[in-house]
């Protein structure tokens, strides 16, 4: 058993996690040996471009990666004193109050969804069932948690509890609705909490009767039903207009402060990261290439990719005459096409000979203990004599 070296305020610690998809075209390394922590009462940001593995990372934490994807290695430590006690003398890895969720049975991980981990997805329109009222869907989530907490052991068994069997019985016996009056009342309360006017009336409506912003609020209400410790928000505002985005971000922040929930904010928008997050990890080609506190990453970025990302976005206040884009395209994640060394080397303006060797994660030497970066530049200055690419090569002729 490894020693994960965890502080008390670490709620979730991901260590060396890799997720691969075994597709017909070959093995896709969606998440490559990723490590990070989620602390109590913080907002952790994960930022990256499309295909960088941010969403799969989130799904890997809650074990929702679907076939042909599989988590191939790594540990997900979660702090839960009761569970840790229960599994202390089993095969599972337990250190103090933390236990490694990868070593407990699948059904235990399943039982944590909703009550410990909860997710908000990008597209509320396709995440809710169009033929069931919004209130009913939220009540269902509440009901699941109510039944689970009334009988935690049954919850984890395969057939009973809130599982399939119960649902079939409820569906077949018409006099029994799955959700109870109490759950409905709680659903209305939740809708009110997320700022939906006339919650009692709106609960009776169907998703198509809601606007995009309202639906996202309803999604958040549903995610809160189990009073989770960790709320994973996967691009929660990407589909929304800026004025509505501002409403939703304010709401998420309020809920985070009120409920003391930790939030994992996954987005491609550096502005959203800056507004919401305490700490941030930058993902590129399945790896977290740089992580640290917000000010570490934004004010003193070490990795050329982070620098490039920050240089690519036009500034609202001060229009630069010319943007400094990162040349080239996001790489393919096919295992057969991945280079040995740094994945960013072919686009990197500061790539050197050493970048062709596998790169480890280093302390960024910026004075911040939390600032880590996966780049040789953390150890050595850029030396133009060792550069891989010639400078001043402006336009890309990208070839795939």
């Amino acid at each position, binding site marked *: 058993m490894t020693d994960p070296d965890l502080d008390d305020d670490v709620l979730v610690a991901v260590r060396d996690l890799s997720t691969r998809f075994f597709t017909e075209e070959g093995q896709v390394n969606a998440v490559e040996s990723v490590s990070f922590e989620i602390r109590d009462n913080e907002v952790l940001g994960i930022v990256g471009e499309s295909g960088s593995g941010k969403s799969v990372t989130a799904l890997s934490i809650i074990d929702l990666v679907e076939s042909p994807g599989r988590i191939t290695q790594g540990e997900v430590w979660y702090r839960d004193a009761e569970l840790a006690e229960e599994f202390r003398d089993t095969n599972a890895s337990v250190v103090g109050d933390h236990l490694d969720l990868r070593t407990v049975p699948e059904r235990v991980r399943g039982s944590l969804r909703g009550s410990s981990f909860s997710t908000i997805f990008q597209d509320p329109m396709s995440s809710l069932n169009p033929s069931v009222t919004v209130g009913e869907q939220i009540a269902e989530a509440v009901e699941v948690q109510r039944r689970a907490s009334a009988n935690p052991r049954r919850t984890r068994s395969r057939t009973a509890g809130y599982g399939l069997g119960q649902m079939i019985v409820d569906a077949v016996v018409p006099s029994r609705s799955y959700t109870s009056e109490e759950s409905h009342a709680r659903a209305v309360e939740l809708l009110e909490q997320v700022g939906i006017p*006339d919650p009692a009336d709106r609960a009776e409506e169907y998703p198509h009767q809601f*606007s995009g912003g309202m639906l996202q609020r309803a999604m958040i209400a549903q995610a809160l039903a189990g009073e989770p410790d960790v709320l994973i928000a996967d691009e929660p505002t990407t589909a929304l207009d*800026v004025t509505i985005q501002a409403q939703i971000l304010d709401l998420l922040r309020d809920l985070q402060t009120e409920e003391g929930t930790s939030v994992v904010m996954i987005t491609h928008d550096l502005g*959203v990261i800056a*507004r919401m997050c305490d700490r941030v990890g930058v993902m590129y080609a399945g790896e977290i290439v740089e992580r640290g506190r917000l000010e570490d990453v934004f004010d003193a970025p070490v990795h050329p990719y982070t620098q490039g990302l920050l240089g*690519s976005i*036009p500034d609202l206040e001060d229009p630069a005459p010319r943007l*400094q*884009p990162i040349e080239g395209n996001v790489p393919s994640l096919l295992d057969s096409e991945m280079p040995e060394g740094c994945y960013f080397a072919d686009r990197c303006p500061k790539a050197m000979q050493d970048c062709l060797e596998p790169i480890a994660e280093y302390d960024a030497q910026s004075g911040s203990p939390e600032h880590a970066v996966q780049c040789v530049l953390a150890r050595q200055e850029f030396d133009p004599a060792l550069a891989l690419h010639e400078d001043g090569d402006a*336009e890309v002729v990208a070839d795939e």
Partner: protein
Amino acid sequence: MSETDTGRIGDGAQAGTDTVAGETLVRVRGLEKYYYENDTIVDTLLGRETESVKAVDGIDLDIERGETLGLVGESGCGKSTTGETLLRLREPTGGTVEFDGRDVAEFSDTELTEFRERAQIVFQDPFSSLDPRMTIGDIVTEGLTIHGLPEETPPDTSRQAARRQRAEELLERVGLSADQIDRYPHEFSGGQRQRIGIARALALDPEFVVLDEPVSALDVSVQAQILNLLDDLQDEYGLTYLFIAHDLSVVRHICDRVAVMYLGEVVERGDTDDIFTAPSHPYTEALLESVPRADTSEQGRRVDPLSGDVPSPRNPPSGCRFRTRCPEIIPPAGVDTDQALYRNVVTLRDRLERGEFGTERFRDGENDDEAFKQSVREEFGVDGLSGADADTVEDALEVLANGREADAAQRLTDRFESVCETDAPADHDCGGGQIAACHLHRDDSREPAPDANETAIESAFDDTPADLSDDA
């Protein structure tokens, strides 16, 4: 709408500056695009009322030769429809578009063909806007083929070969490689496809290009490449752009002037720097305020966001369309209360008027009128008014307690009706060519203009824009 109406604010403001007539490449006046529902013969026979969706409702724009005009707004505000309508890809239902001094709607077939050579469009979605069964060479040369170009070829090359050569040049120019010419779109990434779309638009050597959200589907690093490319191409070919976008930082970067749209109308227009540093319309202000900046100073910043959603264009609000969300709605003379309280009263009134009040919600069992009124006061936050304002609200609540919702709404309307709901705001010149359609800029309001006070009140309430520019 008269085209010779030189009294329009837009003309006046520009005539005042150094703009010379004839530099305007595209002139849009009162452009309307309505979509009708229940408009079939069957509906007419059944006597169904035709319902119109006012996607674009009377907008004015001037696009100068060689500039980039940004058209910004939230989804559904009509910005894409505007772009397509002014290229006559959709037929406008009203208003005029003049291209290089000639009315686009009156072009004959041959003239329209010529217009199509001179005006092009790049679409938002690089995946659905390229035919997957054509090679990118065919895609880029399709326009040339349709227009029978080039008209003359060197003696030893066929027209076909000349086209292919042109396509290769264009591909190289937009940052692709000429030997990719026989590949299909699926072999390219999003950013590369957008480059193909740009090459296609450039093939006919246009003067004017409508860029409909050209970078919003792209990742930020690629987005910056495309923005730089568009910048370079504009310099090189002297292109005029209409840049449609919802991302304000992109607009700030690339546009010379900006027009902000809300619910089918242009609410503010002017120079990019002016609009971004000193927005005149409350909507522009809110929009800028909402954008998250990628900077550590952004951390924990709370935005006072606009409340509610954009209303439906099927049934837009009367008067100023932004008034249902506006944080600076103007109370009528004599009403003396702070903005938040006033807003609450108006919200109560609106709910009553729309019949969405739901009196029974406040009738908790057998509670008496006093308890009922108290729960309404609490729910809508209309406590704390004073004097005649408070009396009117009390009066309305009393009527409401008797179950007469419409009556209660009327009483509130009588006292609290705002100019923002009775009158559509005219365009007001805020100086420096910045024009905002907002009652706050009436001359008797926030910034009184010299010498215009006498006519100001009349003109502000008059729907047609008065000759304010002449006064100024």
